[in-house]
């Protein structure tokens, strides 16, 4: 493995100013007929302006639910935030009135979803959907909003934006649709973008295009970016810091370079050993035992230990 002389671009975590987003000890539970599932168990993380935090985890680890709670779009019921604080520029959003949250959402923080086709309205043209952001939040006239929509599509590098602004979502390819999602998130120039698996549904060459675009735009606007993903490769390419989630908890958080070199938590180590690598012809992959899920009624301090580590220490000689 090559060692690089890399200046750490991330702002030091010891900066005293209030963080852009500071999530403290967040708890979310789902009250279902089968019982109460603790989806998020005391998650804390912070993101500063211009910083990329990657939240890494497998299905059911609670990474998306945390983001939904932060955005205030948790389906409730069955989901309930039962504890913690979500401080956005020092103000606790969980205590804010619904009207205030609505003003923050979209304008100050925006979200990009995984599946662009089902996140966009199929019966409205993309121009109308992009323009709606300006009409609703800024009271702009429809015609002006349409012009802004074209501008946005240009900015996310959709070719022939002027002639395609009247097209419907199904007329665009997957990569182009994801660009439209990004444009929509960018429309009001938010301070924070939460991207939930933004490239998971895309082919690798398109994924590279979209991640590149996202990184460029983030730099340009000095936004904070929370990148939620299960892909250790994508994370390595763009993130400044990384938080690894397992069973509703953050098991490890560290600057990006440290995490890959010296993973501290056995789960992180197991995860790194379980992926096949493009740059090496591997031997047998390390298989993490058990399943990452939060069934109702679990209560150990460390779910991961309960499932695997007490049986066997993962082999590691990195």
């Amino acid at each position, binding site marked *: *493995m090559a060692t690089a002389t890399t200046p750490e671009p991330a702002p030091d975590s010891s900066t005293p100013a209030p963080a852009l987003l500071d999530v403290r000890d967040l708890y979310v539970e789902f009250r279902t007929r089968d019982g109460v599932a603790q989806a998020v168990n005391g998650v804390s993380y912070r993101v500063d302006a211009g910083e990329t935090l990657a939240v890494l985890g497998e299905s059911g680890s609670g990474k998306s639910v945390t983001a939904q709670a932060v955005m205030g779009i948790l389906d409730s019921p069955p989901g309930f935030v039962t504890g913690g604080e979500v401080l956005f520029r020092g103000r606790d959003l969980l205590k804010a009135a619904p009207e205030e949250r609505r003003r923050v959402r979209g304008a100050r923080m925006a979200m990009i979803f995984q599946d662009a086709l089902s996140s966009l309205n199929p019966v409205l043209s993309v121009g109308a959907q992009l323009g709606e952001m300006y009409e609703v939040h800024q009271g702009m006239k429809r015609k002006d909003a349409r012009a802004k929509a074209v501008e946005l599509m240009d900015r996310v590098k959709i070719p022939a934006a002027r002639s395609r602004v009247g097209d419907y979502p199904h007329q665009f390819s997957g990569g182009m649709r994801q660009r439209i999602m990004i444009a929509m998130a960018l429309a009001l120039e938010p301070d924070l973008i939460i991207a939930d698996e933004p490239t998971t549904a895309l082919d690798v060459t398109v*994924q590279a295009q979209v991640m590149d675009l996202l990184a460029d735009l983030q730099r340009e606007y000095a936004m904070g970016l929370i990148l939620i993903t299960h892909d250790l490769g994508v994370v390595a*390419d763009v993130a400044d810091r990384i938080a690894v989630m397992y069973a509703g908890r953050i098991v490890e958080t560290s600057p990006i*370079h440290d995490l*890959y070199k010296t993973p501290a938590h056995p789960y992180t180590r197991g995860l790194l050993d*379980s*992926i096949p*690598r493009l*740059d090496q012809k591997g031997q047998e992959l390390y298989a993490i035992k058990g399943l990452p899920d939060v069934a109702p009624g679990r209560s150990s301090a460390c779910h991961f230990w309960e499932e695997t580590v007490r049986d066997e220490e993962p082999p590691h000689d990195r």
Partner: protein
Amino acid sequence: MTAEAILEVRDLVKHYPLTQGIVLKKQVGAVKAVDGVSFDLRKGETLGIVGESGCGKSTVARTLVGLERPTAGAIRYHGEDIARLSGRALKAVRRNIQMVFQDPYTSLNPRMTVGDIIGEPYDIHPEVAPKGDRRRRVQELLDVVGLNPEYVNRYPHQFSGGQRQRIGIARGLALRPEIIVADEPVSALDVSVQAQVVNLLERLQDEFDLSYVFIAHDLSVVRHISDRVAVMYLGRIVETGTEDEIYGHPTHPYTQALLSAVPVPDPDAREHRERILLAGDVPSPADPPSGCRFRTRCWKAQPVCAEVVPPLAVPEWFAGAAGPAHPSACHFAEERHVVPSE
């Protein structure tokens, strides 16, 4: 490796007609999903087929197992062209070529028990297992794929994604086939579960002397499991070779772009990694570009690329060299390192 080829695919073509009109149907064109694909599969090896969505890799898989009839071309299994067989002869061949599907949620019937799902192939090929013996066989298979044999009476929804994929694999193994065609078998799984299933597939290959055609879009998984790799683009193979030839010495621009786009889980690599970003999208297979199909997105494209279809052949400059000579369908094939090496 010089083992005999058990499956020879020659100039395989699959076109889906596009029609117009309701009563008087008129063919107005064709989606050229697969357009002249040739490869060999040898005994005991794993052939990986990679490519992005719409490149035709799944159509190839479906024609191999006989789910689709090829428009033209030959698929020879031990020298016999299965594309021309029908009836009893076809059924006999199909027993030896089985498939594992991508989505473990939709490829298992939710109203059948696991025992019925895995045992169903025996209804079609009763000669493999006599009636009274089936339950024992099914339980053996469950054990082989790492599931508790007592689960025979459970239903698919009682299993996790990884366990369901094991059930799909057990069904594929039931008839003791020689070849397993696996179409994106681990794409729907979490990484830790994916590792379990990949390891299982490798173990079964040794145990039952299987040959795999492993189809995936994840280049890292394909490198891990494959002996030889074929890269597809818009219905054609653009480059093929051993795992080391493709990943260590790619010569086709598309292969290079594809490999360079794969994120590598190593943050130190990001500063000094060369990235080839392709412009635009894949053209429609109903109306592919003339000549070389990749030319519309290729940075090396010259007028000749629009006129002459580049053959899938070993480039001349490789001739005589002891190096990693392998076929590449490009007029301007040239080696370029895009995968960081250890």
